[in-house]
Structure formats: structure tokens, C-alpha cells
């Protein structure tokens, strides 16, 4: 691994604010979403991104309009970091027609092709070939757009990981594969699934520039992603980034996560990515406590109004659904 030099210039206040807003918005979305789930308003599966906010936040802040992302089953954070409308996300979780997928997709399938969000995915590892495909489409169009696929330690053990990263490598695609190494595949610890636990080394084996970063440090993730984007645009892609992190709870809302050691959880909670984003905005960005409080209040209100909007929305009717099904 070669670690690129930290960006020479200190991050601007605008960037730090953007990063804090995103990380905090994800935190609110997941925390409040879990409450809605417990009230029975959200059904099906809900895989919280709590504890991993630093990765989606840092990565997406380094991307531009026209780029693509492909996400995972734990995808709310990626959507929010990509700039998704919280109203339409909540509406999707509440099965409403005003949701991103009209309630046809749900938590694991939120996508918005019109802005390059290729979608969350219910199949672990499946976003990797899809992302490489988007990068290939961009190359064929002659565009310098970059595609990021978020995958995980779990996803990196799927066969498509090697097949698609290798294709991206031989074709020099503008593709960045971000392994969110949260150290668990559902409940299976990484020590049980992998002998070499530094997963970035898998990229080196197939000739891909590969890096490791503290996934709980959104600024570091941002800086590294920016370097990765530059490498891609200089024709040196694809790039692999392993971001180490830890979930704050079990695999999904109904998994108490009792298998997660308390001391390890405490270690990562002490390095909470949202707290670090807030501290960075305060210390490096020179923001005042009132500014932070105002941002937090604004985001909380945005979520509340998204819930109101969603509750007031209608569902697709069975008649309209049957019409949709014609010709399938």
C-alpha cells in the first residue's frame, strides 16, 4: 500500500460543513427511521448505516455531477450522501407512490438513475459488476465520469469481486471500489471468513492501486477518494479503497448484535464519524456552536416534514399495479 500524501491545503469551511451536514443527516435518518420501524410504520428489512456514516459522506463529497454510485443493502447513507431527497426516501420506506421507486423497491432498492444512483442492492456483492458496467458505459461514451461501487468485507468474498475488478483493471476504467470493512458479514466475523484481513491487498494482486483508510474519519476518506478520482482521470484507474469501520448495532433493526464484543463497540463509538465531522467543523472550520445547533435543528425538521409528507402520500393501487404488470 502506498498512502497518498494528505491534501496540502486544509479543507475549506464549506467542505467541512457539507461533510458534517451529510453525516448528521444520515445519523438522523437512521435513528429516526428505526423509531418508525419500531412503531410498525416501516416494514420489511432495514439495515442501518449507523457508525459507517464517515465513508459514504467522505466518498460522495469527492465526486461530481455526472459520476455514478452503486450501493449495498445497507444503502440509506449512500443515497443521502449522494444528495437524495429525504422526503422521497422516507416515502419509499413507507411504501408510498411518492417514494423513489413508488414503493415497489423499498429500503434495499432505492435508486435514481436520472442522477447516476444505480441503486442499493439486496444481493451482497452484486453492485460491483454493475458499477464496472456503468464505468464501461462512460468510457464508451467518451466521458470521464467516475463510478464508485460501495461493497463490504462480506461482498469482497463473492466471486464477482475478482471478476469485475479484474475487468475494470484490464480496461482501465474510471472505477473506484470502496470496501466498507465493518468486520462482519451479517454475524460472521472477518477472522472467520478471511485469512488476510487487510482487504486492500486483494487489489494489489490484480494490479489495481489500492489503499486503506480509517473509515470513521470522513475527512481522510474524502481526501483519499479525491486522490483516487484524480488517478482515474489520469488513466490510472481503477482504484481500490478499504475503509475500516464498525457497525453501531446488529445486521438489521431486529438483530440485537449480541455477538459484537462490547469493548470493540466502545472503541469505535469513541471514534464516532459524526462526532468527528462535527469536531472538524468546529475546530478546523471555526464554526460556532450556534451554527452547529442551527444545522442540526434544520436537519431534524427536514426529517420530520419528510415523515409528514410520506404519511399524507398515497400508495400505488392494485389496479395501477396490474396495469404496470401488463407485458411483463
Amino acid at each position, binding site marked *: 500500500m502506498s498512502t497518498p500524501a494528505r491534501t496540502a491545503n486544509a479543507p475549506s469551511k464549506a467542505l467541512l460543513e457539507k461533510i458534517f451536514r451529510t453525516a448528521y443527516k444520515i445519523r438522523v435518518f437512521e435513528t429516526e427511521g428505526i423509531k418508525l420501524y419500531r412503531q410498525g410504520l416501516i416494514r420489511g428489512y432495514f439495515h442501518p448505516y449507523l457508525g459507517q456514516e464517515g465513508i459514504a459522506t467522505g466518498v460522495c463529497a469527492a465526486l461530481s455531477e455526472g459520476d455514478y454510485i452503486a450501493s449495498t443493502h445497507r444503502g440509506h447513507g449512500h443515497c443521502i450522501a449522494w444528495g437524495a431527497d429525504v422526503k422521497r426516501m422516507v416515502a419509499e420506506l413507507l411504501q408510498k407512490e411518492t417514494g*423513489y421507486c413508488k414503493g415497489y423497491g423499498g429500503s434495499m432498492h432505492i*435508486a435514481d*438513475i436520472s442522477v447516476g444512483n444505480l441503486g442499493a442492492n439486496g444481493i451482497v456483492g452484486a453492485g460491483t*459488476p454493475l458499477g464496472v*458496467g*456503468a464505468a464501461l458505459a462512460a468510457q464508451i461514451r467518451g466521458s470521464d465520469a467516475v463510478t464508485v461501487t460501495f461493497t463490504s468485507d462480506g461482498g469482497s468474498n463473492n*466471486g464477482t469481486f475478482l*471478476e469485475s475488478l479484474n*475487468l475494470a483493471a484490464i480496461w482501465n476504467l474510471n472505477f473506484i471500489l470502496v470496501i466498507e470493512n465493518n468486520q462482519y458479514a451479517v454475524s460472521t466475523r472477518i477472522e472467520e471468513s478471511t485469512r488476510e484481513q487487510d482487504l486492500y491487498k486483494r487489489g494489489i494482486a490484480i494490479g489495481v492501486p489500492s489503499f486503506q483508510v480509517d473509515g470513521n474519519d470522513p475527512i481522510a476518506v474524502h481526501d483519499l477518494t479525491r486522490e483516487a478520482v484524480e488517478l482515474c482521470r489520469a488513466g490510472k484507474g481503477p482504484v481500490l479503497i478499504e475503509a475500516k469501520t464498525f457497525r453501531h448495532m446488529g445486521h438489521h433493526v431486529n438483530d440485537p448484535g449480541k455477538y459484537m464484543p462490547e469493548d470493540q463497540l466502545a472503541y469505535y463509538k469513541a471514534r464516532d464519524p459524526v462526532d468527528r465531522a462535527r469536531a472538524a467543523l468546529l475546530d478546523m472550520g471555526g464554526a460556532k456552536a450556534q451554527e452547529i445547533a442551527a444545522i442540526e435543528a434544520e436537519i431534524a425538521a427536514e426529517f420530520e416534514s419528510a415523515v409528514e409528507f410520506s404519511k399524507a402520500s398515497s400508495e400505488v393501487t392494485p389496479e395501477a399495479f396490474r396495469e404496470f404488470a401488463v407485458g411483463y
Partner: protein
Amino acid sequence: MAMREIMYRDALREAIDEEMARNPTVFIIGEGIAERGGSYKVTEGLLAKYGPKRVRDTPIAEAGMIGVGVGAAIAGARPIVEILYVDFAMLGMDMIVNQAAKFRLMTGGNGRVPFIMRTQGGAGGGVAAQHSQSLEALFYHIPGLRVVMPSTPSDAKGLLKYALRQEDPVMFLEHKHLYMTKGLVPDGEHIIEFGKADIKRPGKDVTLIAWSNMVPTTLAAAEELAAQGIDAEVIDPRTLVPLDKKTILDSVAKTKRAVIVQEANRRGGVASDICSIIQEELFYDLDAPVSIVAGLDIPIPFNLTLEKASVPQKQDVVAAARRVLHADPIELAAE
């Protein structure tokens, strides 16, 4: 319209060539398809004409290349992924079944996947159990996929051109025995919409329904039946999804007798589904039970005599047609 006689593989190449010239986002990837021109020479010359950006060889990574094709389609390109044998497509089934087929619904209709997998199946030539299957029923079963099985050069060209202009994932299933067959193909723009069956031979006594390589077998059977005074109508659905039920039902309503011929093994096959459609719609018009001629429910053996015994032959079709016509005396069981 002026016509030319060309081979099935040349017709496929013309379709790809014309659509690549027309739309710069059409590209093709597969094993040995660039410099080598493909195992069946379908892509010969395309590398020289369109360059290595749009005509690419891949490593042996079916799940990866099918997935990359699906992703490129989602992102607005028009990929053709060539898989050497339909048997090998099994390595990419997650990408076909869970990704390509589901995407449109999961996105509430906003996301479309104009992805084409071209591959070939079928028995013949002693290529044994892992290179001989007819797997259309697997794809037919999955909502969201289009299943296309052309039997002639003209259909191959017209359907592939249509496939490259529509918006859904297409399983374009060719047959290894058809590549060198010849047929007339219209000059100029030639496009065949999905969901339009073709009456390959009009007749009045019995309806024979067949697709892919079973069409030539069934047409040969129809000629033999004609010599016996039986006038068979042969219908080729051409696309199994969408299925042109109307043309099939109109024909059976007229002849009151139907035989469905598929190379695939019988259990859970497309023929069984077409049979159920006919009996549900036309039960009281039928003069005989609908008959299915299909492969044996067993993997295809290498030995060429046994291989032949495991898939339908002309005489099986002739016998089935005579049976539904009650053309032969009934043999009573001995006491």
C-alpha cells in the same frame, strides 16, 4: 422486396453491424469475439470496423461480464454480451435473474435494462452434457426477461435488430446447428417486433408449434405428413416472451389439434405452459388431447446414438401428429 440468401451467422453479424453503425453506444463483449471473430464467426470483422473500444474480448468470467453488461445497460449503453454456451450463462444467473430482470420493477419503472445476452444452446455433435442444453424454460419462468429463439436467418436478423432498440433485458438464444443454415433475408432495413409468431407452413389438419432448431425438424415432418395426405400448419412463436398466444390459438381453433415440439427436456418446459394455455382457452374445441414432443428428462449423453435418442427427431413429430389425428388404428391390449 429484394432478398438475398445468407447464413444465420451472417444475418446476426449484419444486425450487429448495422446497429453499431447506427448507435454509438452499442458494443459487444465476449470470449474470443474480437480478433478471433467468435467461435461461430458471428462477430468476424467487427473489431476492424469498430475498434477495440466497442468490440472486446473478456477473460473467462461469465458472472462478471454479464453483470458488467447489465450495469452498462442501466447506465444507458446498449451492450451485447456473447456467452459461448447457454450452459455457461448459469454462472451469471444472479445478474440475469436478480438484477436485470428485477431492476425495472424495483425502480418503480424508472430504470430500464436494455441488455442483450447472445448465446447458443442445443444438442448435436457429441459436445456432451455441459455444452448441449436447451435452457429457455429457466429464463421463460422469470418475469422481466425477454426470451428470443430465432430459427431462420431472416428472423435472426430482424429480431436482433429489434432487441437492440427496445428497453428490456433479452435472452437471445441461438442454436449451434443453425449458424451455417441458409435462408432468404430482405435487403435494407429489416426489423421484426417481439411477440409476433410466424406461420412457417400453412395447413388445415393439425397445428405443429416449434421454435429454434425444432422448426426445421418440424417442417421436415410436415412434408412427410403431406405425403401421407395430412396438411400440417407449422407455427414458430419466434419469441417465447412475449408469446403470441393469438396466432397459436387462432391456428388451433381452426385445426382443433395441436402438437408442441421442443428440444428441451419435457419436465417444467415451455411446451407444457403453451399446452396449458391451449387447453384452458380451447378445451371444448379440441378433437384430441394436445401432444408434446420433447427431450428426455435426462442430461445429454456424449455417445452420438444416445444423444440423438435424447432429443426429438422428425419421426417423433410425425408420430405425434398422426396420434392426435387418430390416423392409426388403436391397438387393443391383449387379454
